[in-house]
Each structure stands twice: as C-alpha cells, then as structure tokens.
C-alpha cells in the first residue's frame, strides 16, 4: 500500500466549522469515486470526531483541530483527526455506546459507535491534558476498473 495523495487541514474548534470540516474531507475523498452512501458515511464519521473535539477536547475554550487525510493505492482513505485538548482518561469507557459526559447538552454517547459503524476501523490514541488523535479508515468500493 502506498499513499497516492494527501491533504492537511487546520481550523479553530468552533461549532460552525463542523460542517466545513466534513465537507472539506468529503470533497477531497471524492476523487476516489466513492458511492453517495460511502461519502455520506465518511461525512458522518468525520462530523462525530470533530464534534468530540469541539464539545469535549476544548470544552469552553477555542483550540486548533487538525485533520490529515491520506488516500492509498488500494482505494482507502485514512483520516486522522487531532486535537491538543483535555484528552481521554479512559478510552474504552469513552467508546462504550451511550457513555457521555455531556448529557445536559443532549449528547447521546453515540459518537464512537457511529464512527465504528460507518467506517472499517477506528483507532484512538489519547493522553490526558495533551490531546487525542482519532484515526478512521475506510476502503471504498471500486465501481469502475481503471485500466
């Protein structure tokens, strides 16, 4: 597997940037010719990860969210969403469906479950007070064979 294309994005953790982030990532991935369904799943997974940065990592402060996307020769997209926020103490607990620390804001605790269900692999690395990196991988179907 080799990387055929790559992009980096960095923006402030304002909630109005959630739409920007998922649109930018899906626009970049569009060159792999995904189906509408696949693109929608990527948009949703990215939206969940970025919302986690806005709601949890930076809480009431504004920090920088970085996204790196790599497209690979085997038609996969690897999306890394990184923040320098509060970090996650207990990753496996945070990834449990319905677990949330923000129920007052009607957060459902479904973020990681959605990421897992809408992509092929989710990997989380985090250090308290340092930040969190979520890596999403999704292999796209090859609809046309390229000669």
């Amino acid at each position, binding site marked *: 597997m080799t990387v055929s294309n790559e992009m980096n994005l960095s923006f402030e953790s304002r*909630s*109005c940037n*959630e*739409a920007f982030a*998922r649109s930018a990532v899906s626009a970049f991935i569009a060159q792999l010719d995904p189906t*509408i*369904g696949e693109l*929608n*799943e990527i*948009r*949703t997974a990215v*939206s*969940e990860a970025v*919302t986690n940065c*806005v*709601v949890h990592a930076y809480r009431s402060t504004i920090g920088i969210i970085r996204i790196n996307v790599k497209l690979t020769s085997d038609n996969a997209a690897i999306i890394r969403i990184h923040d320098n926020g509060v970090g996650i103490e207990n990753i496996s607990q945070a990834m449990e469906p319905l677990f949330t620390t923000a129920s007052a*804001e*009607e*957060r*459902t605790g*479904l*973020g990681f*479950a*959605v990421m897992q*269900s*809408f992509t092929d692999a989710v990997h989380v690395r985090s250090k308290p007070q340092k930040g969190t990196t979520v890596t999403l991988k999704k292999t796209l179907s090859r609809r046309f064979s390229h000669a």
Partner: protein
Amino acid sequence: MNPKFSFDDNSMKVQLCGEIDHHTAKTIREMTDQLIQQKRPKELRLDFSQVSFMDSSGIGLIMGRYRIMSLYGGYLKVVRVPEGLEKMMILSGLGSLNIIERREEPHDCQQ
C-alpha cells in the same frame, strides 16, 4: 437553515431543513422548545424530508423532544425520514420507541 413551524389543532409540525449537526441542533432545539412551552401541543411531528445530512446530534434532538413531549403528556412522531438517514436512525435504537412514521405526501421546504 431554520426550521418551519406550523400548527393544526393540537398538533405542532416542525419542518426541518438542511444539515443537522451539533452546531445547527442548538438553534432548532431552542426554537422548538420555546414553542412547545407556549403552545403545549398534544402531538409534535418532526418532519425530516428536507434534511440532507444528520449525525448523532439529530438523535439527541429527537430523544430530547421525546422526553419533553412525554413530560407534558403529549407524544412525538418522526416523519418522512429520507433513505440516507435510516442507518443512523436504526443504529440509535430509536426504532424500539415506535415514534418513526413513514410515508406522507411530499412537501417542499420554503426558505
């Protein structure tokens, strides 16, 4: 995009439009809850036919309104869910609440 509200007898309809995420859900929630408190409808209908994107914030929006309607002795219906949003609805377990209703004539979103 802001939702459109309409009233019919004891029913309040919310026509949702565009993308529902953490950012937009806040405005929708505030506008909807203010009207629920004013009008105290028996039925609340959330119409998703014009929603082009929704993440789990949309599920939070539905669950929250479900609770408020139950609290006031009313009920909630989620209507005209587009195909693209079904996976999210199923994943959330909302199906077991029996609030999702499908099929109704098309209705355009007025901007």
